[in-house]
């Protein structure tokens, strides 16, 4: 129950923030990728810098060390990243954004959402059939 309530609180906050930042606007994302508007890129960079400063602090403060999953490079990292980037530029959505768009009333995001689930299932099948590497524990977090 606690997990569900906490997930819900984080989700609503994240969805609201992504909407107000403008990450859910196809045109904003398009301008980011064309380097025509650096606002989203700067926001992302600022967040990474703030997080890099905050993690060690939080780690020292917390009694139980929370999960700190390693994210190693594997054979799917580069190719998968490029494929996702292309999909992001086409649909204007990363996995959380499709849902934010839907909530905002940009109902065409149902197509993106359906596509994300199809792509996820498709990769699972492709991986089982042809690939022999382990994607690591990253799937879990």
């Amino acid at each position, binding site marked *: 129950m606690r997990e569900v309530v*906490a997930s819900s609180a984080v989700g609503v906050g994240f969805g609201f923030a992504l909407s107000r930042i403008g990450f859910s606007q196809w045109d904003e994302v398009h301008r980011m990728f064309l380097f025509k508007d650096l606002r989203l890129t700067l926001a992302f960079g600022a967040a990474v810098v703030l*997080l890099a400063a905050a993690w060690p602090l939080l780690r020292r403060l917390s009694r139980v060390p929370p999960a700190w999953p390693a994210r190693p490079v594997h054979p799917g990292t580069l190719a998968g990243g490029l494929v*996702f980037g292309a*999909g*992001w530029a086409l*649909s*204007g959505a990363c996995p959380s954004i499709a849902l934010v768009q839907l909530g905002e009333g940009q109902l065409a995001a149902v197509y993106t959402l359906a596509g994300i689930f199809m792509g996820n299932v498709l990769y*699972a099948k492709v991986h089982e059939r042809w690939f022999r590497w382990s994607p690591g524990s990253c799937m879990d977090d």
Partner: protein
Amino acid sequence: MTPWAWWASGVALALVPLVNWVVLGRMLAVSGRYTALVDRFRSPPQGPEMSQAELIAAVRAATAAEFGEAAVATEAPVVQPSSAPAPRTSLSSIVFLASLALGGALSAALAGTAPSGLSLRSEAFPRIFGEAHWVTPVVLVVGGVLVGFGTRMASGCTSGHGLCGVSRAQPGSLLATCAFFAGGVALSFLLEAL
């Protein structure tokens, strides 16, 4: 609706993973929520899940049945549970994904933004892809498939790799995030050139 300034956006994007870490004890990773749901749907769990205490009791009973009570007379040392977070439930993943939509709805409602129906709120999209009615579904489904396929293949997306992994200098996340942007930049310039 005027979007937040870059610095305020940066603070917000940093706060979400931090709060997530404090209240859930794990890294924020949205594509992982999709994967958790997909895997649950593809292979439903067999039988009821056991707690550690139930498992120990069951093993104990089976040992006694096979080798007699003497075999379990001495108490086994109690194993301390690890501090790893409990496995995510499907319910919490569904609730998390639905809450993202709720957050978007809240933002739109407070700003008084009208729904855009079965299209995206965009000027560039129809300019690039044309106005034929089949264009939006086709482009978005194809884009969505690439997003789902690519994030699962790379084991993460903009939140897990981009925010949480890069800020912890994880090698896989640094490479993946460079690839996200390289793929996005390449395709966007291609769209403009066509």
